[in-house]
């Protein structure tokens, strides 16, 4: 049996740049920052008082009663999945799917941190008012598989709903799992991606205590600056991004529009340190080589890389060294986190969407705030989008825990 080709037929997202994929992509091409000051009362005493908050609040999309029963990470996952589902030309009415057999439809959506906002809010209620006042919706709101399960319910998926958790590599690994599910013959369509909504004092305090976050509080739009000598950490973002992966023959049979082919994936673990990246990026280099082999391509074929590049002092240049070793000096890079902030578990999925649209439009979205580049940097599309013919592109994601995921998309 030959291995089935897998293509991308739908995209959905709600991000700090826009409430859907089209507005997010327009903002990326315009080089806009989604980062702003946190004006909430709880932020005043924090060392970090900036974040990339959603452009369109879930309350503008989902009704009030529904939102009472959803963690914010679940709400944004549902919104992104609904968009991707409609974009792929599918519909679900009263739990019945149209266009795909429900028993051949799977979901793979993960989160880096999960329902932390629910956990913390319900703990406040427990402390203040006692156990009986804790919401009966607490567990389905905070369970890590909640976003995948709610999306599965929404779309009527019956081939399995899966929840990958690999910190900031989650979104990419969830897409890699979707590829595996279709190749293994366990599904024809997989709704795959990542979600994150933890703009809350505890996660911010935790990341800030690690000294991982930018404290450029007086200049939010310039705080996320991958590869710039003045970078001082990542900027936390929130949102969700979801793609519809489909067996190529299934997509062709229904006449679906195909954005790109998901040609290969590579997943490795460093086995080195719980949070520090391997100094030579050994695990990351292996992930890229595995992805190239899986896609039956060589480094020379990769025209563009959407880098992980979070704007931390150590991580950004380690990735450059790894790219040089695994691919070479030729690709045109970008770091879209300079605009979106770091969406943690959703980052890899959002950047996959940016990679797919770069291929479609033959345009590399810019890296903003790169005013004083590090020495030895590769070719980066700085401040303005770059026209580029892109037959194949790479998207990298790394996560605390030593997770490395490389995805390769090609023109259909």
């Amino acid at each position, binding site marked *: 049996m030959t291995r089935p080709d897998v293509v991308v037929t739908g995209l959905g997202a709600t991000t700090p740049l826009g409430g859907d994929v089209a507005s997010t992509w327009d903002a990326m091409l315009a080089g806009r920052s989604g980062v702003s000051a946190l004006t909430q009362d709880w932020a005043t005493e924090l060392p970090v008082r900036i974040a990339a908050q959603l452009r369109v609040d879930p309350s503008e999309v989902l*009704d*009030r*009663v529904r939102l*009472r*029963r959803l963690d914010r990470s679940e709400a944004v996952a549902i919104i992104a999945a609904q968009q991707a589902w409609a974009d792929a030309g599918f519909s679900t009415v009263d739990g019945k799917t149209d266009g795909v057999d429900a028993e051949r439809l799977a979901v793979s959506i993960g989160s880096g941190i999960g329902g932390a906002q629910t956990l913390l809010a319900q703990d406040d209620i427990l402390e203040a008012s006692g156990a*009986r*006042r804790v*919401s*009966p*919706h607490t567990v389905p709101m905070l369970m890590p598989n909640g976003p995948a399960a709610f999306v599965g319910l929404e779309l009527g998926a019956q081939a399995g709903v899966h929840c990958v958790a690999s910190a900031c590599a989650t979104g990419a690994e969830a897409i890699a799992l979707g590829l595996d599910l279709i190749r293994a013959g366990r599904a024809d369509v997989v709704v795959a991606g990542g979600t994150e909504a933890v703009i809350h004092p505890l996660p911010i305090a935790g990341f800030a205590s690690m000294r991982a976050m930018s404290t450029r509080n007086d200049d939010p739009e310039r705080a996320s600056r991958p590869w710039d000598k003045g970078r001082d950490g990542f900027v936390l973002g929130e949102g969700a991004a979801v793609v519809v992966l489909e067996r190529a023959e299934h997509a062709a049979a229904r006449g679906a529009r195909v954005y790109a082919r998901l040609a290969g994936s590579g997943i490795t673990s460093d086995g080195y340190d719980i949070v520090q990246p391997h100094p030579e990026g050994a695990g990351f280099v292996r992930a890229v080589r595995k992805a190239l082999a899986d896609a039956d391509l060589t480094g020379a074929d990769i025209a563009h890389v959407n880098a992980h590049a979070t704007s931390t002092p150590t991580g950004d240049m380690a990735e450059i060294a790894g790219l040089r070793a695994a691919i070479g000096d030729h690709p045109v890079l970008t770091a879209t986190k300079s605009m979106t902030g770091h969406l943690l578990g959703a980052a890899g999925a959002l950047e996959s969407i940016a990679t797919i649209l770069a291929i479609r439009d033959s345009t590399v979205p810019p890296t903003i705030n790169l005013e004083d580049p590090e020495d030895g940097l590769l070719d980066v599309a700085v401040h303005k989008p770059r026209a580029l013919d892109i037959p194949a592109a790479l998207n990298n994601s790394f996560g605390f825990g030593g997770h490395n995921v490389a995805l390769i998309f090609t023109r259909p």
Partner: protein
Amino acid sequence: MSSREEITAGLAEILEEVAGVNPADVAEEKSFTEDLDVDSLSMVEVVVAAEEKFGVKIPDDQVQNLKTVGDAVTYISSNA
């Protein structure tokens, strides 16, 4: 002591807040699950909110007997 009408109106407010039920649909003969589409988790929320609003204790073993709005009104008016 509230009248049956006042208790029904109070329950209607809770049902709207918790489960999005149209207050105009709330009447004594309506079943929570079948007519008003209140699922089991939301029913727990309704009970806890009713306890607070009416100053009454509704033990878990009583909740299963509260099939209709009228059952709840009767329980609340005789136990508050």
